[in-house]
């Protein structure tokens, strides 16, 4: 039932929202000013002269375009892999009976509590021995692997409410377990899979530690941003420009797909519940 909230709540929420936006405005303005002007404070707009200098310099002096492509590539591959394999794993854990099912599930889900930092050193040694350092697989494998903890959990908890009769009806109709997954379960899993995809996309896109350690060239935007920030020049304006480029894509993704994210999670076999 939609209820109109009292005015003061709208005012309060508006004020807080504005507060949240201020840093964003700051970043945008910073990227458009000269370092001298920034030193006086980006909010001193009175005698600031705006320039696109930082944007062109960051684009020419650093391989931002290549990094953008690298980010897109890494994130897209990792996201698609998670979208395909996490639901399959959740389905197998939920509906199929196989030895060590429980043990494996607990193992996978427990990676939830395992901080990324813990796996990084052994993983580094492993990749080094396998000669994978610098290879995209060195990042994609842990991206996807670490996502299973929450992605499998998320899809599986959705499957808890998935009508069992649909699976049984498919069995009666002569559809095997793999066919049932692709023909019956997957088409009804759009909302949890989009949720997984969005989370995985944002997480991979913003991930810094793994690509920084495991990649040499072809680094994604986050690493590039860190490199720009690591310079000794006064280049806050270029950092801001790169930060905007970095943040722009996930922002678009989120705005575009927020509907799926919040969508209702009910599948029904048609009965009255």
């Amino acid at each position, binding site marked *: 039932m939609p209820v109109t909230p009292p005015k003061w709540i709208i005012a309060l929420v508006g004020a807080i929202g504005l507060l949240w936006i201020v840093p964003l405005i700051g970043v945008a303005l910073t990227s458009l000013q000269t370092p001298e002007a920034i030193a006086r404070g980006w909010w001193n707009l009175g005698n600031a002269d705006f320039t696109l200098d930082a944007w062109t310099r960051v684009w020419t002096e650093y391989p931002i375009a290549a990094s953008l492509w690298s980010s897109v590539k890494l994130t897209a591959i990792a996201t698609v892999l998670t979208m395909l394999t996490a639901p399959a794993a959740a389905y197998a854990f939920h509906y199929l009976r196989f030895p060590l099912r429980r043990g494996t599930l607990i193992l996978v889900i427990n990676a939830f509590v395992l901080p990324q930092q813990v796996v990084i050193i052994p993983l580094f040694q492993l990749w080094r021995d396998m000669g994978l350092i610098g290879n995209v697989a060195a990042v994609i494998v842990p991206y996807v692997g670490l996502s299973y903890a929450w992605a499998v959990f998320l899809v599986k908890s959705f499957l808890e409410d998935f009508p069992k*009769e649909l699976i049984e*009806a498919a069995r009666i109709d002569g559809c095997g377990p793999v066919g049932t997954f692709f023909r019956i379960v997957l088409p009804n899993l759009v909302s949890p899979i989009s949720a997984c995809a969005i989370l995985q996309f944002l997480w991979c896109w913003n991930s810094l530690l793994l690509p920084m350690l495991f990649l040499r060239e072809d680094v994604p935007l986050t690493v590039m941003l860190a490199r720009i920030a690591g310079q000794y020049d006064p280049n806050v304006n270029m950092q801001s420009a790169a930060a905007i480029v970095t943040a722009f894509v996930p922002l678009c993704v989120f705005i575009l797909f927020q509907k799926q994210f919040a969508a209702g999670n009910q599948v029904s076999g048609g009965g009255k519940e």
Partner: protein
Amino acid sequence: MARVTLRNISKSYGQLEVIRDLSLDIEDGSFTVFVGPSGCGKSTLLRMIAGLEPITGGDLMIGGTRANDLDPVARGIAMVFQNYALYPHMTVEKNIAFSLKMAGYGRAEIARRVAEAAEVLQIGHLLGRRPANLSGGQRQRVAIGRAIVRDPAVFLFDEPLSNLDAELRVSMRSEIAQLHQRLTNTMIYVTHDQTEAMTMADRIVVLREGRIEQTGTPQELYEDPANAFVAGFIGSPRMNFLPARASGSALELPGGARLGCAGDGLPRELSLGIRPEAARPGREGGGLRLEMEVALVEYLGGTRYLHGHLADGTAMLIEARSAAGIRPGDRLPFTCPLEALRAFAPDGARLRSLSLLPAEPETA
């Protein structure tokens, strides 16, 4: 078309045994209804026949072959679920065609069969819709269509009508019965509603706690129940059970009524069953004479149900077709012919050895 035979079937979930050593023969082409109270194992039994639930012990034979380890498709069964279980992302047409597609039929054959099933169930105009855009009754038709399109040897229904409203349930009931006459496949139907069982079945199997209490035609179960449970379960409104005490060759009933009785090995305490429709208000007619205090009159148009109790407080419900003017609080005498009475031992077993006689004339 196939005969289904269950031989010493049992089912356990871990330690919990829900079906015990159950044997049953289901005739080819019959309409058999499993009926029983909630939790008695009807669905479990049906699902074992369907191949959705592994069988713990015993043999299941369908059409002469042992089917214990066969896939549902290899068993030649189709099932209609209580919640319809229509695939929400497919149109009605795709839903019905799905099993044919899985079985590898050609496009033309699928189209022909779907059209035929849609024709039988009068859902041709719904073929393009999604299940979410159908009414409950239409969904149920689609679910039935999905089953008949394969022309299975055995149809299984698990409470298919329980989600429908009362009126629709009655009409779907007769539709399913007609469908059976038309298709002549073996049908096994699960319900907890005895009215459904009575109206549709060739044979009823009454289950309780994983065991068969009695099998027979509706008439056999109604007229000749094997025990008090079946007598109470079959028939609506329920049969009344009156406590009776045997002393010598007489039976004492509540309110001082007496009957003569003969038979050997009778227990001292027993119960007499009277169906509401067997009782006749008034003093005319022989047999058992009783008197009840009416507490509530349920008027149903053609008939009325009189709720009340006997002198000792035993609840009593009788049907009165032509007793206008009876009101709550009235004391109403009624009679019941002796051949309509059923006697049961305290453990519920039917006392077939007991024969009832009219009360001996009072010896002053």
